[in-house]
């Protein structure tokens, strides 16, 4: 008990030094928690944007279709298919299934005036599309695609690029299934601004009936079946189980993570980066603890000698130093966690305007506007415990060094 009391009071003996090192540990905890929340927010929002606007929880298509799209970035029309009832029933029977919409994607040049621009044309079934995607909720002008409509819905950036407004004319130039050039013409029916910057420039929406006819495909042809699930977390597991059920049928099932492998890789890189920053901070904190304890041991040589003369064993003196280091870790960890709670609290409730701090589009991230952090309460606990353990581990060598001093030299060191 007395050793604890001495260790506790020693903490405040050089309180500026204690605060400096605890402050470094606090900063490590705070920066990590804040960065992690920010990073989780970025990837959470990015994946949500991908799910809501680009590829939902699960996508089913011909295996060759995915392979060709990956190979030459062209949309392979010969790999389209007409979904059979058995397949649709199997999908609808998935646990957590919410909605399904067929999509027919193809590549085209968007032409207006003297200019053209390569785009992805997403031919949609207007009745079911809103059950899976949210693009139609982000209309800034006009209306969304309707069945049999000849109009097109384009992104706001593309509209700006061509100086188009709802009601203006457009032309889509593309190759049909046979390789012959064809066009679709009509009015720009609506303009959307979705929080997925890339889609505002390179994706246009048309009605599937109209597109299928122009591409020389049957009315019911689709390139992919897009499925919305109740829960994002179960998507990968369900995609795997559906993939298992469809094995040998020529179909491939992909979850949103499979279709956004760039983002998944970026997520890993992001975490490596914040762990690297954390290690740097902790290294500085750890060196701080070591130097503080070495200084403390040098300042307290006579005391250590006296303690030995009183009959304290080396292990007991080591304990005094370890408890002192743990105290610094506790102070730094607790302060970091408290400030982390406040910081992450702000980030999750008020958010940050991304435009002020970065250009997500330049980074290739599917997000825009306000970013909100995410909570990961386990990180608060882990970081707190980790910092305390680190403080204690860092102090082991200086503590043994201090406690191993010869009592005679220690007492008479002056």
């Amino acid at each position, binding site marked *: 008990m007395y050793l604890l009391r*001495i260790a506790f*009071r020693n903490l405040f003996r050089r309180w500026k030094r204690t605060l400096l090192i605890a402050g470094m540990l606090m900063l490590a905890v705070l920066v990590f928690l804040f960065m992690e929340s920010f990073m989780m927010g970025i990837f959470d929002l990015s994946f949500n944007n991908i799910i809501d606007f680009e590829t939902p929880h699960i996508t089913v298509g011909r295996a060759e279709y995915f392979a060709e799209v990956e190979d030459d970035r062209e949309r392979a029309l010969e790999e389209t298919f007409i979904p059979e009832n058995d397949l649709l029933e199997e999908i609808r029977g998935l646990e957590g299934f919410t909605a399904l919409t067929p999509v027919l994607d193809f590549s085209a040049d968007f032409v207006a005036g003297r200019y053209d621009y390569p785009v992805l044309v997403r031919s949609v079934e207007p009745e079911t599309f809103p059950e899976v995607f949210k693009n139609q909720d982000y209309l800034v002008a006009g209306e969304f695609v309707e069945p049999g409509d000849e109009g097109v819905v384009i992104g706001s950036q593309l509209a700006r690029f061509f100086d188009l407004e709802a009601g203006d004319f457009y032309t889509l130039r593309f190759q049909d299934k046979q390789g012959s050039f064809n066009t679709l013409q009509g009015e720009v029916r609506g303009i959307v601004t979705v929080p997925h910057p890339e889609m505002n420039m390179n994706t246009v929406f048309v009605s599937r009936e109209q597109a299928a006819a122009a591409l020389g495909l049957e009315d019911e042809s689709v390139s992919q079946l897009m499925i919305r699930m109740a829960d994002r977390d179960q998507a990968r597991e369900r995609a795997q189980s559906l993939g298992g059920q469809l094995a040998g049928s020529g179909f491939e099932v992909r979850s949103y993570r499979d279709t956004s492998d760039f983002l998944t890789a970026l997520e890993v890189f992001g975490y490596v980066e914040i762990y690297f920053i954390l290690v740097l901070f902790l290294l500085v904190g750890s060196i701080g603890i070591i130097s503080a304890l070495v200084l403390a041991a040098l300042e307290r040589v006579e005391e250590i000698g*006296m303690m030995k003369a*009183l*009959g*304290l064993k080396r292990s007991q003196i080591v304990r005094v130093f370890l408890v002192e280091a743990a105290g610094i870790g506790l102070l730094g960890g607790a302060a970091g966690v408290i400030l982390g709670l406040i910081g992450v609290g702000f980030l999750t409730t008020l958010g940050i305007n991304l435009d002020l701090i970065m250009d997500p589009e330049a980074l290739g991230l599917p997000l825009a506007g306000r970013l909100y952090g995410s909570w990961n309460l386990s990180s608060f606990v882990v970081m707190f415990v980790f910092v305390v353990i680190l403080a204690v581990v860092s102090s082991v060598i200086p503590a043994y060094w201090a406690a191993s001093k010869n009592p*005679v030299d220690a*007492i008479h060191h002056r």
Partner: protein
Amino acid sequence: MELLELEKVEKIYQQGEIEVPALRGVDLTISRGEFTSVFGPSGSGKTTLLNLIGALDKATRGKIYFDGEELGEQSKNELAMLRRKKIGFIFQSYNLIPVLTALENVEFALRIAGVKNGKVSRKKSRELLAEVGLEGMEDRRPNELSGGQKQRVAVARALVKEPSLVLADEPTANLDSETSQEVLEIMLDMNRHLETTFVFSTHDPLVMDYARRLLEIKDGRITQDKNGREPGEASRRLGPDYSEKADGQEKE
């Protein structure tokens, strides 16, 4: 009955390749209840002798018996246990633990010595602080005490566990004559009523005057051993300025 027996004790310090002898074949016996002062010039081996009989260091050659047990054969932990229970130390620079109050500094020694009951240890520590004249100052930290008060706390800390032996290395070196005399009177009083054995190492004529037995040490050898003196007789007669007067007499 003998508390300490030293047989041909030698202590040699190694400084690089050079051997520096600090004690050269010391034979000495110290009985229980003695009030002994070891004096001699700097570097004569006084502190080395105290370190060896205080189980803080081991002899290079020869044997030291404490209460009949040979110290050279004991492990570091056994020596630590011996110091806990049977030996009290008083140092020139007090060596109090600055983060503990006067009472806690005294109680700490008692707790280390094995007294588990907090009430008992606190009561005893208070009593001892009162005996050394520090009643009402129990809650002061060392930086709130004068040099004399700190040394009184150190005396209380050394005595609280009722050790067989108290070793005091230059206990008055940082104190004025009046305070030195007060502290020595306290120790003498303790020696009388607790029968604790005291061994001092000193240059101070006042401390020498208080000793019943005087051991002179020169070049690592005991050169003089006077026993049966009346402690403090001269200094009480001459007052607190005894040291200066004694110095003056010496010069004359």
